[in-house]
């Protein structure tokens, strides 16, 4: 059983409908537990995330934002990884300007069967975010 009193970081996940959503769903199906303060918003492709959405999430109190990138599995083409990487880089710059620690935005490729990888990412990201907060 989970330690119900344990503090967890609030993490917003931008997840893609065809690729990472099935992985996140399968993590639930397999009862692979991860922090319950992880919330996912589905989008068609990870290279379509606007930096202003990420900044909005930080303004609203999210501790971290995770982009579950399509990587080489992207049904829309090979340029997805590079484009998603550019979004992360440009958002990191914007975060620095606003004195937001860039490490609070993380991106990793999550394929349609990468349930365990997703759970690992959420747990380690949660721990890193808590460390940043001195918890």
């Amino acid at each position: 059983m989970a330690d119900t009193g344990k503090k967890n970081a609030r993490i917003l996940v931008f997840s893609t409908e065809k690729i990472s959503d099935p992985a996140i769903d399968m993590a639930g199906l397999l009862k692979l537990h991860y922090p319950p303060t992880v919330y996912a918003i589905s989008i068609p492709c990870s290279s379509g995330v606007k930096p202003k959405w990420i900044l909005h999430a930080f303004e609203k109190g999210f501790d971290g934002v995770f982009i579950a990138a399509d990587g080489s599995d992207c049904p829309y083409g090979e340029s997805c990884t590079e484009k998603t990487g550019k979004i992360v880089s440009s958002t990191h710059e914007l975060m620095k300007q606003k004195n937001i620690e860039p490490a609070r935005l993380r991106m990793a490729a999550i394929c349609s069967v990468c349930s365990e990888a997703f759970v690992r990412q959420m747990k380690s990201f949660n721990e890193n975010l808590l460390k940043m907060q001195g918890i």
Partner: protein
Amino acid sequence: MNKKLGVYICHCGGNISDYVDVEKVRLSVENEEGVFIAKTTMFACGDSNQKEMVEDIKNNHLDGVVVASCSPKLHLLTFRAVTERGELNKYNYIHANIREQASWAHSDDKARATEKAIHIVKAAIAKVRYAESLVPIKIKSIKSVAVIGGGVAGMKAAIELSNLGCQVYIIEREYFVGGRVSQWDALFTTNETGKELVTRLYNDLVKRRNITIYTSTEVISCSGNIGDFKLKIKTTPRYIKEKCNLGELQNAIDACPVEVPDDFNFHITSRKAIYHNFPGEYPQSPVIDIKNCTRCGACEKICENVDFSQKEEITDINVGSVLMATGFDPYTPADGEFGYNSFDNVVTLPQFKRMIDLSDEKLTFKGREIKNIAYIYCVGSRQVEGENKYCSRYCCTSAIHAAINAKKKFRNIYNFHFTRGIRTYGKQEVLYDESSRMGDIYLQSYENDPPVVTGMNDKTVVRINDILTGKREMEVEADLVVLITGMVPRKDNSVGSLFKLPKGRDRFFNEIHMKLRPVETVIDGITISGACQGPKNIMEAVNSALSAATKSYSYVSKGELELEPIIARIDKNLCTWCNACSQACPFDAVKMEEDKTKVFAVINSSVCKGCGMCLPVCPTDAINLIAYSNSEIESMIDALA
């Protein structure tokens, strides 16, 4: 924005409500802006609830609907259809996933699972406030299907698709069609042999003009989407000319000096490097196993049909749907598991079935006549500590059937079954009855006290604490121990990875839902059938193949498919035509236009795929994706924060 909304929160039996307090969720959202109806329901997908929703939408003139239940992969379409039946455009429906992403994912923390569910439903409500009525986009769908695997499931699926008027490509990795069934002798219930069944199906296939069979062929790449998959397939040569003299070939086979373990007989015999599995196998041309061939030239000297100049062939095919029928592997016991590879008279069920087929008059193994046979059940299935927790379903019946056949074919056979409870479900119970009447002895143990195989003075003894006789210790001196091995996923399942097919807990390919969306996968346009989805007997495999064929046909039958009208939209007033969106678009969907006042970008709606790659590159934030606008995403973030 002043929408009248209906919100339904599902118990999913107890799948959700065992971990999420659904009433608390309802109370938390019922006073949200615009919410007119907030209800909980035992099964949102049930007929009675669907009817109630339709009435609610019609009677209350609802403008938006949210159902909080399972993954949208399961029921998004169900509730969109409900919304349409309520005479509301289906894009005014938003799905909230509080099962896979709340109750199941956080079943270890009910309070926080409930808190998360509340946020998820509020986010869906926030989104539905901005939802708008849309018209689906239509695309062409190619009326052809690729069937991956030429076993019985694949062949039956191909025949069904052919009957429906579809172009079918069967792609079989092995040199011969028929899969596992060609390895079996008489089948229950008909006594038709596996070879006869395969022959019957093959003869049906080859007379059909709309079926193309590729053997020794693998898919090496796949691109495209539902309605238009582009497959690249590689065919390995047989090194035998297409039209050849079979008499000469037999001489060439006899002359081949190479001997390797025969996979067809599960390594209880050997074969040559030039071989066929049995006379008359399909296709009827033998093959040279080039990996084991030493190129000694002995066959070439005898037979002019041997042709080492043949090369690999790459072929491109274009299909609207892909049907997977790649089958299973039998479980291989670990060394020492019930004496496997420790005692030379311990074999697996598939090996035993081949032994029955290959032996005449006397059942012999390694030169010794077999009389006492001990069958140990559930080897590699229902494992307490191993990976295979599942029941392989077919093995109890198959073992009893093989035991009966052995007794009928050979004299003085005594069968002793060491079981964990017999599961000959349905009509297969007849076999259990027949074997009992024939004098077979059934013993049973629990999973924590399995039978033990020991060697004693050149004898192999199987010992059990039999729960059917009050845990009396019983032992059998066995001439042969048959391990009743179950089904496991194919060792080489790389074709599944190629199509990005997810696997379930048992490592077989995963269908979306065993009852609600069987044979469908989360990869649109790809269906699964037979034992690649999970253990099945032949009848069950064929039933699932017919189901998958029907589903695949539904993707291609109309020649067109409806796609989501989710495309980019440009605010002309904000656009300054910097060209960034045009450069970012992988589909060339953005064009420049000019009017009297300015130059601006426009979206070609028939080309735009709705990926959103143009959104983040726009310096003036002039582009939004329908259903994923700034307002929608930011309001969802507000609700989740």
